């Protein structure tokens, strides 16, 4: 009951702290709007694709033949035209000469694929569809490309017909607003650390720590109440930012709100524990504030909060991987665009794990202290 009262009080007082509230809400939303609009062409995925022409040969009478023909019929609706070729034509050369966008050989061993280098977008769409097709039929796919690494095709094989599945291709990466909605929401979640670093300290500064400490309640009740209140109000802010980005900016948060909320919640938990932990590790107010600000800024920058950092390698990649904002955003991306729930659960577990380390450090220091 005391924990609850203290949590409510913390919640209420933060709501009245208009400056903090404005920062937690307006800052991410405005940045989302600015960056999401200004950098929209960087993320543009909605390239119009016209007709795709694919050349194919069937060696022998392969057992996938009938399925493949159904496939061909289906993909016509997607503006993809397969033409059978006689053995006399060199399919690879036809592709090289840009007569076709891709060449496919169906054999007993599976499907061989050659994509056009020039029409990489088209060829990768064909590749994706074929991958889905082969996945679906449990075939051994043996896809060789003239230039490997060219396109990383998403391999998903669950649900729907393969055609529908792969026609989502163009939406399978976040657009700019989707990206910044995730980036800003995960960034501002980490900023909960700032208010958390003052959670107990502010009670000491205001001397209210004295009243709390002389009251007939346990010290841990105070501690837990304060943390709960802080997590609750920060989490509500994050949810508002998220909901706003979805309804006002149309950001895509996927079809798994439960998991999104889990990731964001564990991130707020991590941030609050981190702020509190640091405030017990560093003696001075100014020091705590500085350290937290530096870490948050670095984590935001390298975590891709302001712009996407692509293809990082070596040391840069290491720094990027250290940013909780990056973990959270990556996990969200994988989940929203790939239906990859494992990454989400792993990230949630990682957040909770690190949060507990900071929390235990803070609790140990807190219990040792006289007063609060």
């Amino acid at each position: 009951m005391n924990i609850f009262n203290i949590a409510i009080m913390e919640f209420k007082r933060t709501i009245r702290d208009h400056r903090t509230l404005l920062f937690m809400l307006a800052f991410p939303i405005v940045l989302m709007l600015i960056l999401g609009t200004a950098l929209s062409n960087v993320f543009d995925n909605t390239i119009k694709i016209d007709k795709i022409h694919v050349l194919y040969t069937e060696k022998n009478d392969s057992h996938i033949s009938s399925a493949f023909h159904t496939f061909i019929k289906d993909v016509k609706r997607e503006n993809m035209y397969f033409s059978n070729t006689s053995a006399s034509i060199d399919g690879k050369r036809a592709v090289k000469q840009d007569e076709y966008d891709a060449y496919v050989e169906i054999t007993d061993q599976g499907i061989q694929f050659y994509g056009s280098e020039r029409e990489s977008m088209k060829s990768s769409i064909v590749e994706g569809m074929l991958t889905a097709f082969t996945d679906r039929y449990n075939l051994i796919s043996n896809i060789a490309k003239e230039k490997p690494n060219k396109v990383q095709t998403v391999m998903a094989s669950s649900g729907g017909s393969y055609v529908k599945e792969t026609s989502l291709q163009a939406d399978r990466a976040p657009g700019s607003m989707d990206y910044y909605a995730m980036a800003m929401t995960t960034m501002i979640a980490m900023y909960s650390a700032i208010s958390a670093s003052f959670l107990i300290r502010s009670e000491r500064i205001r001397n209210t720590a004295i009243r709390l400490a002389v009251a007939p309640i346990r010290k841990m009740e105070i501690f837990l109440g304060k943390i709960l209140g802080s997590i609750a109000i920060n989490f509500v802010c994050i949810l508002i930012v998220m909901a706003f980005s979805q309804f006002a900016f149309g950001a895509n948060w996927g079809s798994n709100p439960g998991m999104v909320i889990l990731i964001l919640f564990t991130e707020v938990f991590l941030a609050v524990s981190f702020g509190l932990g640091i405030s017990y590790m560093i003696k001075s107010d100014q020091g705590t504030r500085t350290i937290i600000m530096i870490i948050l800024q670095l984590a935001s920058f390298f975590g891709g909060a302001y712009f996407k950092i692509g293809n990082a390698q070596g040391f840069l990649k290491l720094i990027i991987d250290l940013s909780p904002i990056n973990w959270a955003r990556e996990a969200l991306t994988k989940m929203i665009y790939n239906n990859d729930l494992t990454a989400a659960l792993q990230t949630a577990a990682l957040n909770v794990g690190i949060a507990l380390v900071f929390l235990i450090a803070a609790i140990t220091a807190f219990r040792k202290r006289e007063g609060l």
Partner: protein
Amino acid sequence: MEIKNLTKKFGDFIAVDHMSLTIQEGEIFGLLGSNGAGKSTTINMISGLLKNNGGEIYILGKNIATHSKFAKMNIGIVPQDLAIYEDMTAYENVRFFAGLYGLRGTELRVRAEEALEFVGLSDKQKSYPKNFSGGMKRRLNIACAIAHRPKLIIMDEPTVGIDPQSRNYILNSVRKLNEMGCTIIYTSHYMEEVEELCTRIAIVDHGKVIAEGTKEQLTAIITDTKEIWVEVKTCEHIDEKSLKEIKGVNTVTIEENIIKIISQAEINNLNQIIQFFINHGLEIRSLQEQAPNLETVFLTLTGRNLRD
């Protein structure tokens, strides 16, 4: 309340040194001492904020080391520094803190309202303390300590830095609380307040009780000294040392243009003292012998002024 051999060290520094005191129910007990004497530290140990390094504390007959919750329930603390939330209304402040003492629902509301009324802030219930005057904040600070109706109320310098009107209000509230049955421990470095208010007084210096008793008992200590105040026109060049050499003079302190001399009572040295001022070309404006007060007691016992 009783404390025995209470000791507190901060590192090597002994802030409270084997202090023993007994306070009866119904008393207004004054702890008088200059800044840094160890008053707050003592109070913080009684309230459970600090752990003592030695000695025992009993509240209503129970050792607080083993009955901490009982002790805490029965104590109300008015901290030396304001301890209120500026971003919660006066009512919310009182209600929140009283709620920590297990009060709920209607009882909690009524007690909180009563406490605010007691300190004269009923009409400010819904206002935020950030808009309060210093005196109003001090009064709210008191309301937060009394809503749970503690038997023992400890006030640590509750009148520091406020206007005379609020000060009188607070002193009257202390008396009223006492009449309502509360035992009160009142610390101050204002001699007048303690003299006026307290039934018994302990003078604390360097963490020790150096004298204890009623005002009369304490001033009786100094039957053997007298205090002479000499007011001069200017006192820029006073040779304190040779003034002290006059037979019987114990201490000399200078406050603005008043020279306060404490001297042994049985030695008649008034002539020499006057002669001293004449010899040094200092024009005497007035000269009077003070009735002994706590200030004199303090000065006699410690050789220092209370406000030093």
